[in-house]
């Protein structure tokens, strides 16, 4: 990504160790972005009746109840969101240019361009972006493009009462996150680890990254996501070979026993 201005890349650091599961982020996001209702379901999955990120859920609070050795219960709560990847699968495969990279380094859908082809949906290694059935187009977190453009913070971060969701320049957030992990480990929380902070991972690091207290898959996150387009050069090469075989088969079929019908 080339810098077009001195605007730093902006992102989210979601520190799940201080999430209290209040879902203020889910509500604030819906209110600000006019995200329609996603159904009144009782999922029977702890306090989670939202289930997953979708076209109509751009922040999702996960609740995990883990039995501990001492007979007590450990609560894990985590507010998930679009990762705004450095190498974004959704953005790469979008055939219309509806998905684009903003000046803040975030990934946003232009709703007046999207024609609902749906290609971005299976291209996201995190299962974030989705199609709104009655509308036909795809929707996801914009990192409140309208708010941050006006110098405000995204609605979810603004509403978070414990600063579990922090918004800011990505460099600063990463530095702060590393300090936070070191503090937690020093205090005996040896499970603490960052997720998505590594610029060398399969998506080049994420603009929205997390501090987790267990393996990513426990929270419904992929443990080693890779942007599908990383292998696209190899794929085109294999397709070119297959196309060559296609032509060769055609030539062989007509050349065989020339003149004989």
């Amino acid at each position, binding site marked *: 990504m080339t810098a077009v201005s001195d605007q730093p890349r902006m992102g989210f650091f979601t520190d799940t160790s201080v999430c209290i599961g209040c879902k203020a982020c889910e509500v604030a996001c819906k209110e600000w972005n006019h995200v329609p209702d996603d159904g009144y379901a009782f*999922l029977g*999955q702890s306090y*989670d009746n939202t*289930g997953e990120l*979708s076209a109509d859920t751009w922040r999702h609070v996960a609740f995990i109840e883990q039995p501990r050795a001492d007979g007590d219960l450990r609560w894990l709560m985590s507010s998930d969101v679009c990762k705004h990847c450095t190498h974004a*699968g959704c953005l*790469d*495969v979008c*055939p*219309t*240019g*509806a998905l684009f990279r903003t000046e803040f380094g975030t990934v946003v859908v232009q709703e007046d*361009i*999207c*024609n609902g*082809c*749906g*290609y971005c*949906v*299976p*291209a*996201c*290694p995190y*299962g974030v*972006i*989705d199609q*709104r059935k009655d509308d*036909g*187009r795809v929707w996801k977190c914009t990192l409140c493009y309208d708010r941050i453009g006006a110098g405000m913070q995204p609605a979810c971060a603004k509403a978070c009462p414990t600063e579990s969701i922090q918004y800011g320049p990505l460099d600063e957030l990463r530095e702060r996150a590393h300090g936070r992990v070191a503090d937690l480990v020093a205090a005996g929380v040896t499970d603490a680890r960052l997720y998505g902070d590594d610029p060398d991972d399969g998506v080049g690091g994420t603009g929205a990254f997390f501090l987790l207290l267990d393996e990513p*898959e*426990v929270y*419904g*996150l*992929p443990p*080693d*996501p*890779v942007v*599908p*387009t990383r*292998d*696209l050069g*190899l*794929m*085109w090469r*294999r*397709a070119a*070979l*297959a*196309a*060559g*075989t*296609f*032509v060769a*088969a*055609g030539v062989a*079929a*007509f050349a*065989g026993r020339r003149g*004989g*019908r």
Partner: protein
Amino acid sequence: MKERSMVPRAEFSSYYGRPVLKKPVWAELDIAGYFFTGGVAAGSALLAAGADLTGRPSMRRSARLTSFAALGVSGVALVHDLGRPERFANMLRVMKPTSPMSVGSWLLTAFAAPAGVAAASELPVGRRLFGGLARPAGLAAAAVAPAIATYTAVLVCDTAVPSWHAAYPELPFVFAGSALAGSAGLSMLLSPVPENAPAARLALLGSALELVAAQRMEGRLGLVGEPYREGKAGAKLRASKALTVAGAVAAATLGRRSRLAAVAAGGMLAAASALTRFGVFEAGVASAEDPVYAVAPQRERVEQRERVTEARP
């Protein structure tokens, strides 16, 4: 005999067993159907060019008409599948090599005009209008056809869907073989027996290509190969293989003598080609629905890296 997986079920964690990925939102009839009709359009364009250059007028005529008809069905299916069909023209708003769908939109656009001219020239009205253009147009369509027949494999492989993504080395060959066998089958179905020899040979070559590539793919894939063997997808792919073998054998033997055998062979090959596309489509969807296929291979990679890191002094 029912096949059983010899791979032990992987241990993995998940969030209430929920999928990690979103499954494709494409309608199977539209998109798997398009993979079939697009392959037929491409394979028939190749056959039409061969028939034209070797002086087989009936075969040329049926292949050109089949190619353009299949392209028409493809176009309808693709536009119908869009969430906003009225915005289909946005597909040509940009040219994006990172998006196989963008590449495919331009390929289909490049294919449509010459394939249309070649088909029209087979009808009395079109012959008067495009008479001299028929051969160059047919050859131009055949030049784009190999890309049309194979890019759809790249399109599905370039996703996070585990059983599609991991299949990228072989799937273009499966699709190319399926396109050849299916269109050769339709050609045998629609052309007179005396002109059938090249189509019968192409049916044999395409079937062999598809079967070998599919065998290699399923043998190599391990855990994410499971969806190609199990459930509805597995049943369709097994049926496809049986019909491919039966169709190819019939095409190569009786199909070159008896009209009835040619029709039967052609029908089996066309059905097999369609079943392959629907089976591959369903296998991908199944692999996105079950979190084990996304999580287990990734967890394995992480542990592999950790072992390497720990082994360092």
